């Protein structure tokens, strides 16, 4: 039987999502990665750089919030909410992003160039490439670290 404490999830899911976005922003600021998920998400809807960043930021927080629900559910299958169970799911989530989601992105994103065909007049955004390495050699590490933080916050505080 899966039970969700909605109040806890809403609060800690939101906190974890904001922490995730902040950690990603810090990773960019420190030059660890050029993966800018708010910009990538926002640019699905608008070519305007500033608007894309603002829109993407809101989207990213909401998506992260939604994902935290999966964390809450998944942790119940592996022994309940603890910080280390959160970390385990964070690692799994990051692995999915690095190995699958980033690779698939040029096929999904309407403004992202293809790794094989290059940019066209509508698809101009540099694709992430294998493991996201086009965005910097430490991109996979940044993805893992930020998602571990995300998972750890939910695991540690959700009850």
């Amino acid at each position, binding site marked *: 039987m899966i039970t969700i404490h909605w109040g806890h999830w809403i609060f800690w899911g939101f906190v974890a999502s904001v922490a995730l976005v902040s950690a990603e922003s810090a990773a960019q600021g420190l*030059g660890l990665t050029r993966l800018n998920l708010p910009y990538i998400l926002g640019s699905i809807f608008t070519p305007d*750089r500033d608007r894309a960043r603002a829109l993407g930021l809101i989207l990213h927080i909401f998506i992260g919030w939604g994902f935290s629900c999966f964390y809450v559910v998944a942790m119940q299958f592996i022994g309940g909410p603890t910080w280390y169970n959160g970390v385990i799911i964070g690692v799994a989530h990051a692995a999915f992003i690095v190995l699958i989601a980033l690779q698939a992105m040029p096929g999904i994103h309407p403004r992202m160039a293809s790794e094989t065909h*290059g*940019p066209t007049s509508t698809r101009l955004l540099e*694709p992430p490439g294998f493991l996201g390495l086009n965005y910097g050699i430490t991109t996979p590490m940044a993805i893992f670290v930020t998602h571990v933080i995300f998972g750890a916050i939910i695991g540690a505080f959700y009850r």
Partner: protein
Amino acid sequence: MLYGSDVAPAIGEYGIIGDCRSAALISRHGSLDWLCWPWFDSPTLFAAILDIEKGGFWRIAPQGEFTCRRRYLPDTNVLETEFQNGTGTLRLTDCMPVYDDAYERKHMVADREVLRIVECTAGEVRLDAVFAPAPKYGACKVRWSSSKALGIRVEFVGAGVRLLSDLDWILRDRHATCDAVLRAGDRRYCSLVLMEKGPAVLSPLGAFSDETLRQTVSWWERWSSRCEYDGPHREHVVRSALALKLLNFTPSGAVVAAPTASLPERLGGDLNWDYRFCWLRDASMTVTAMFGLGYHDEAEAFIEWLLHSTNLTQPRLLVMYTLYGKQAGGEQELDRWSGYRNSRPVRVGNGARSQLQLDVYGEVVSAAAQLDEYDKNIDRSSARVLRGIGKYVRQHWQLPDKGIWEPRTPDMHHTHSKLMCWVAMNKLVQLHERGLLKKHDVERVKEVREKIRQQIETEGWNEQEQSYTAIFQGREVDSSLLMLAKHEFIPADSSRMRSTYRKIQEKLGAGPGLLYRYRDPKMSPGEGAFGICCFWAAECLALGAGTLDEADAEFRKVLAYANDLGLFGEEIDPATGAVLGNFPQGFTHVGLINTALTLAERARREKGQPAA
């Protein structure tokens, strides 16, 4: 030798392109030898001008011997170089794309890009192209990779660049080369984009690049068309305005003195400084030039920057600030670089940042006071800043300082510094009388103004020499004394100003139209004539020290020292007319614009027409 020559070209053989955030120098030989990304004051990506082996460059030119001519596309900062050799003609078009806001909202555009379009217009030409970036002053590890679809990627700590091109580049050891043969009608594209804060926006070349070029040309044409100067020197004035606009850092409103570092004021010497900062000294004259030409947005943005980006140190003002109003970085010497034609050391950062230079206060107040002259508002916070500056000047004007020329010598009482303190007091009184500065102790300001005037007239005047002097109780003159008339301390046609002008010409004249800034047995040998001082002399004549014809003739003599693109550096070698110092120099172009405006005003006055 990869660079293709033993030495970098003469400084005047460079042209500049830019996007109001950073700028690149490109030589007559098609070699991009200077670029700092993403901003003017960032570490270099290409800097062969300072070290042809380690600095990095990006050349696109024909193989073998060729002749070339170049120009800017009319009223733009898009550079076109045409090479001719025995087999054909090649046209290279260089720009850093700029777009208007509406276009950027509707289209995804690269954050930073250098676009180079090469076209064979006659016969056939084999290219001699080398792409050899050396990021971060050539001091960091670089990872190269290449893919057919996404071009060449050069990755380094914290950022990277990507070169997309429909030319076949071959990756070699820390550089790429291309020796393609282009035939008449062939048109090829190279787009270099920066990857820094997020995924890069790439350029798909072909028609897309042509549209980018069209947008850029159109942007510059529209900007140039706003120039209200319609006098006889319009071509030089518009080129100077375009050069000045390239140095205007749009995100903050700051104006950098020059886009380069360590180009020598004396060939083979050590007068090599980093000018990629915003000097407050340039403020009032730059604002005069911008307002005078009708570029009110740029002038207001610059004043806003002057008054508010400097608030971390107010009421004390530093000599220079970074693009965002921080204190300039400490001076470092890049020992591993040979310097421009062995002019060592190569310096980045600027040690003059901590000097006391009292003239900057007058410059800032004078710049802000022009808001009133053009019926713009001075808001309460700006008024508070001006009052604070006024108070600081009242308390400190009697101190010795380094003065306008920033020598690394002990502080002295410079007449020009006292003049600018007088200007600060004078402008504050004027603003108060116009009702724009309230809660202001105007009587004390007037009192200090009068004291400064008396001191300049007694201590700064040498009866025996019949001239104002560079330092109090001195004998020597310097060119900054020409500013006494410009700032209305004394009429240009007064006997004191006329005799000072004659003395300056006698002591500092360096040839037709040329003036040294000062003569110092230790500092001056080998140094060139100072660009803006040459224009000050012509302007002083136009203000009344001479006739209109004399002023115009003097002005034309100085204009003759521009390079083939109409650009000036900081100094001019009196022996050869060659450019010396950082290039192009905003201050010199400001001098050109202001002199042209003063000449036009004098001409209008003499014709009995109303002032512009």
